[in-house]
C-alpha cells in the first residue's frame, strides 16, 4: 500500500511529503519529495549584493536564524580577509549559542510531541520564548533576526539584555533538568527511541552526517573544537558523543549540548567588555545614521556601499560553521563584482535526510516519525 506522509501532516515539520510503500505497518520504501518552497535562494543570492543576502539566510533554518546570519557573514569576511572586533565576536558566539539552545528545544520538544510526550515540550518551550525575547531585544525581531552585518553586527546588545540572559541561564538549566526527569528514564520513551534509526560511525560519515546526528553515532566532530572560529578555542566546553546513533542517543547528545551552550554563554557574559561591534573600515561597514546625517564623508561612504557595494577581491572561499544541525557551509565565488558570482549553501539537513530511506526501511510508520524528528528536519534547509 502507498501512503503519503505529509506535506500537511504535523510530524513532517514543514512542506515535505514522504511517499511510503508499506506492507501492513512495515515500511518497504520511503521516497521523500521536497522542494515545495523552492525559493531559489542561491539564484537570488547571485543577483543581490553581499549585504542584501543576509535576510535570506534567516530563512535557511528558521529555528536558528541567527546562526545562519553568522555563518554567512563569516564567509564573506573570509573572502574579504578581515577580522571583526573582539566584542562583535563574543556577541556572535553568545547569540549563536542561544540559537543552538532554541533549535535543540524545538527538535527535542517536537520530537517528544511526535512520539506522544507533550509535557516535556511545554517545559522546554517556555525557555524558547525567553530566547526569542532576547533576540527581540538585540535584533528587533524574534524569528528572522538579520542580526549580523559584514564586518560586525547590526548593533550592540541593549541595556537589559545581560540581566535577562543571566536569569535565563538559571531557568533554562532547571527546565533541561525537568525535561530529563520526564524523558531520560521513562520506559515508554526508551521503547520508542532506543535502537530506532541506529547508524554506525562509518555509515554516518559516508552519508555526510555532521552535527548532533554524527556525534550521536560516536564521531566527536565539532567545528567549534576542530576548526575554531570566532574565538571558540578560548571557551571551556565539552563535546558530548553517543555510541549507537539511534534516536535516544541523538536526544541525549542534544540535551547535553544545551548544557554546554549554557556554559559557553556564561563565559561570554563574564568576559564581555565594551568596544566597537563593527570593523573600523568605511569601505566595509555602514556608518551610523547619526554620522550619515552630520558628516559628508559618511554620507558618501553610505551611498557608495548601498549603490555600488563593496570592493570584493576575485576568488573563492568555503567557510563552515557549526550550526545546530551540523556543518553549515557557504561557498562563495567572487568575480570582483557587487554580487557574488555564485553562492552555494551547504545545509546540514540535506545529507542527513538523504539517508532517510535507509534509516526507516523495515521499521514501522511510528518509527519513521521518531526518526524524522530526531534528524531535526528543517524544510528550509532541504529546499533551494
Amino acid at each position, binding site marked *: 500500500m502507498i501512503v503519503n506522509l505529509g506535506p500537511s501532516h504535523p510530524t513532517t515539520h514543514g512542506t515535505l511529503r514522504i511517499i511510503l510503500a508499506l506492507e501492513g505497518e512495515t515500511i518497504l520504501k520511503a521516497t521523500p519529495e*521536497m522542494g515545495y518552497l523552492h525559493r531559489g535562494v542561491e539564484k537570488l543570492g547571485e543577483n543581490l549584493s553581499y549585504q542584501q543576502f543576509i535576510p535570506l539566510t534567516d530563512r535557511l533554518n528558521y529555528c536558528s536564524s541567527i546562526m545562519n546570519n553568522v555563518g554567512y557573514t563569516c564567509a564573506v569576511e573570509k573572502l574579504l580577509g578581515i577580522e571583526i572586533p573582539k566584542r562583535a565576536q563574543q556577541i556572535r558566539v553568545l547569540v549563536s549559542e542561544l540559537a543552538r539552545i532554541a533549535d535543540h528545544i524545538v527538535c527535542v520538544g517536537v520530537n517528544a510531541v511526535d512520539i506522544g510526550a507533550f509535557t516535556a515540550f511545554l517545559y522546554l518551550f517556555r525557555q524558547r520564548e525567553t530566547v526569542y525575547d532576547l533576540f527581540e531585544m538585540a535584533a528587533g525581531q524574534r524569528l528572522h533576526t538579520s542580526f549580523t552585518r559584514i564586518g560586525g553586527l547590526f548593533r550592540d546588545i541593549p541595556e537589559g539584555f545581560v540581566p535577562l540572559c543571566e536569569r535565563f541561564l538559571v531557568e533554562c538549566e532547571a527546565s533541561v533538568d525537568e525535561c530529563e526527569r520526564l524523558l531520560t528514564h521513562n520506559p515508554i520513551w526508551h521503547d520508542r527511541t532506543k535502537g530506532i534509526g541506529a547508524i554506525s560511525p562509518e555509515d554516518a*560519515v559516508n552519508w*555526510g552526517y555532521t552535527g548532533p546526528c554524527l556525534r550521536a553515532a560516536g564521531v566527536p566532530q565539532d567545528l567549534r573544537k576542530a576548526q575554531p572560529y570566532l574565538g571558540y578555542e578560548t571557551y571551556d566546553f565539552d563535546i558530548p558523543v553517543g555510541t549507537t546513533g539511534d534516536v535516544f542517543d541523538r536526544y541525549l547528545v542534544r540535551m547535553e549540548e544545551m548544557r554546554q551552550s549554557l556554559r559557553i554563554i556564561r563565559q561570554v557574559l563574564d568576559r564581555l567588555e565594551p568596544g566597537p561591534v563593527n570593523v573600523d573600515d568605511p569601505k566595509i561597514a555602514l556608518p551610523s545614521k547619526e554620522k550619515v546625517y552630520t558628516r559628508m564623508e559618511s554620507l558618501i561612504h553610505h551611498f557608495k556601499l548601498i549603490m555600488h557595494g563593496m570592493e570584493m577581491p576575485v576568488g573563492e*572561499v568555503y567557510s563552515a560553521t557549526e550550526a545546530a544541525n551540523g556543518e553549515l557551509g557557504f561557498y562563495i*565565488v567572487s568575480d570582483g563584482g557587487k554580487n557574488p558570482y555564485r553562492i552555494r549553501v551547504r545545509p546540514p539537513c540535506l545529507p542527513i535526510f538523504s539517508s532517510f530511506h535507509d534509516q526507516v526501511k523495515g521499521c514501522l510508520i511510528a518509527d519513521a516519525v521518531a526518526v524524522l524528528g530526531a534528524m531535526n528536519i528543517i524544510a528550509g534547509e532541504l529546499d533551494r
Partner: protein
Amino acid sequence: MIIEHIDAQLPGAVTDRHAFRGDQTIVVAKENLLALVDLLYREGFQLLVDITAVDWPEREQRFDMVYHWLNLASQERLRVKVPVADGGTVPSLTGHFKTADWFEREVFDLFGIRFDGHPNMKRLLTWDDFPGHALRKDFPLDGGDPFCMEGCTAPYNNGERARD
C-alpha cells in the same frame, strides 16, 4: 600536504591548483576523478562535505564541478574542481560516497549536468517537467511562468526564453 601525495601517486592528474584565504583547490580532468577519489579516500578524506557546480557560459568547458572534502583525522580540507562541457557527463561518486546520491541529483536538477553510473538520475528539487535548469546563468531570474509549458506561446527552451 595531500596535494604532494596526489602529485606523487597520480602524476599529471592535477592540471591546475591555487590557494586563496587558506583554501586549497586543485583542478583535475574528469577522466582522473575516480582515481583521485580512491586516493583521497585512502588518505583519510572520507567526509564528502559538498558537491555543487558553477556555470561559466562563456567558457568552452562551461561548468566547473566543485567537490569539497574533509579529512576528519587531520581536519584538512580540499576543494576539487572538474571542468565539464555543456552536455558532457561526469563519473558518479555514488559508488564511494552514499551522500553523493542526492548532491548529484541536485546538480543535475539545477544545472543539467549528468552523472555516469548514478543509480537514480532524476530531478531532486523541481518536478520532472520543470523547464530548464534554474541555476544556469541564462535561466531568467523571474522564472517567467513555469506552469506555461507545452503549447505555450513563449516557453523555455533549455533555459532560454523564446522571443516573440
